[in-house]
C-alpha cells in the first residue's frame, strides 16, 4: 500500500496542496500520513544530508531523529510554508548538531564551512552525469570550483531541488536577500564557463 503510494507520488512529483494536507494530518496524529511524507522525502533528504556529511550511517540516524522529533512534537509544530524546505532545514540542523557535539561555539561556523559541501571538493565524484560530453563536463567542473561552499549549497538547492529563494533562505538560515545574493554571485562567477 505504502510502496504503491510512493511510486505514484514520485511519478506525479507531488503537489504542494497534498503536502499541506499530509502535514495537517500528521499534526492531528495520523501515522499513515507521517509514513507517506517519510517515504516520499527519504531519498531527497538523504542526498542533501550526504552533501553536508559523507557518512551514510550518520545521515540515516539524523533522518530518524528528525522524524521522531517531528512526531513527538507534532502538536507544537506550526503550519509549514514549505514542507520540503522545513524538513531539509531541520535535517541540516540535526546533522550539524551531531557533527558539532563536543565542540565549542567558536569553532562551529569554521567547522561547518569545512564540512558542508565538502563533497564538492571532489569534483570528479560529484559529476557523474555520463551523458555530458567531456568538454562540457570539464567546464562545469571548473565552474563549480570557483564557488564558495555556501554558493555551491545554494546552487544545489536551486538547480537540483528546484527550490525558491524563500525556501533556500529557510534551509540555509539566512534571509531571502542573502539566498538571492548567493545564487546571483554564483551565476556571475560561472558566466565564463556557461558560455553559449
Amino acid at each position, binding site marked *: 500500500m505504502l510502496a504503491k503510494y510512493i511510486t505514484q507520488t514520485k511519478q506525479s512529483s507531488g503537489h504542494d496542496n497534498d503536502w499541506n494536507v499530509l502535514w495537517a494530518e500528521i499534526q492531528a496524529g495520523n501515522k499513515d500520513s507521517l509514513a507517506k511524507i517519510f*517515504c516520499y522525502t527519504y531519498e531527497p533528504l538523504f542526498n542533501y544530508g550526504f552533501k553536508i556529511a559523507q557518512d551514510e550511517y550518520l545521515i540515516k540516524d539524523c533522518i530518524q531523529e528528525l522524524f*521522531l522529533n517531528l512526531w513527538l512534537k507534532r502538536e507544537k509544530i506550526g503550519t509549514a510554508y514549505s514542507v520540503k524546505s522545513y524538513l531539509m532545514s531541520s535535517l541540516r540542523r540535526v546533522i550539524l548538531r551531531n557533527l558539532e557535539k563536543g565542540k565549542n561555539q567558536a569553532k562551529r561556523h569554521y567547522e561547518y564551512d569545512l564540512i558542508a559541501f565538502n563533497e564538492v571538493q571532489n569534483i570528479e565524484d560529484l*559529476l557523474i552525469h555520463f551523458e555530458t560530453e567531456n568538454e562540457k563536463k570539464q567546464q562545469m567542473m571548473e565552474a563549480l570550483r570557483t564557488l564558495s561552499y555556501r554558493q555551491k549549497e545554494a546552487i544545489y538547492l536551486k538547480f537540483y531541488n528546484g527550490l525558491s529563494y524563500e525556501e533556500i533562505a529557510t534551509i540555509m538560515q539566512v534571509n531571502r536577500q542573502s539566498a538571492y545574493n548567493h545564487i546571483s554571485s554564483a551565476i556571475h562567477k560561472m558566466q565564463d564557463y556557461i558560455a553559449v
Partner: protein
Amino acid sequence: MSKITSLITELIENQSFLEWLEGRCSEDENMNWNFWSKEEELHMTAVSKIKRLRSMPFSHQSIHLSETLSEWEKLKKDIEKE
C-alpha cells in the same frame, strides 16, 4: 551585477518561465515565452545559460524502495516505544 546575471537570477524564480522551460505551461504562456525568448539576443542567451545551469549534474544516490520502507519500519518501532 551584469544584465545577463540579473536576468537569469530573476527568471529562475519565475514559475511561469520554469513551466515553459519544462514544457508544461498553457498554450498562451507557451506563445508568450516563445515570443519573448526570440525577441532579444539577451533573452536567447539567458534561456541557453539557464538550461546549462539546470543540467548541472550533481551526484545522486538512488535509494531502493525496500531500504526506505525498512527505515520507516525502524522509525515506526521507535515511535511505538515512546
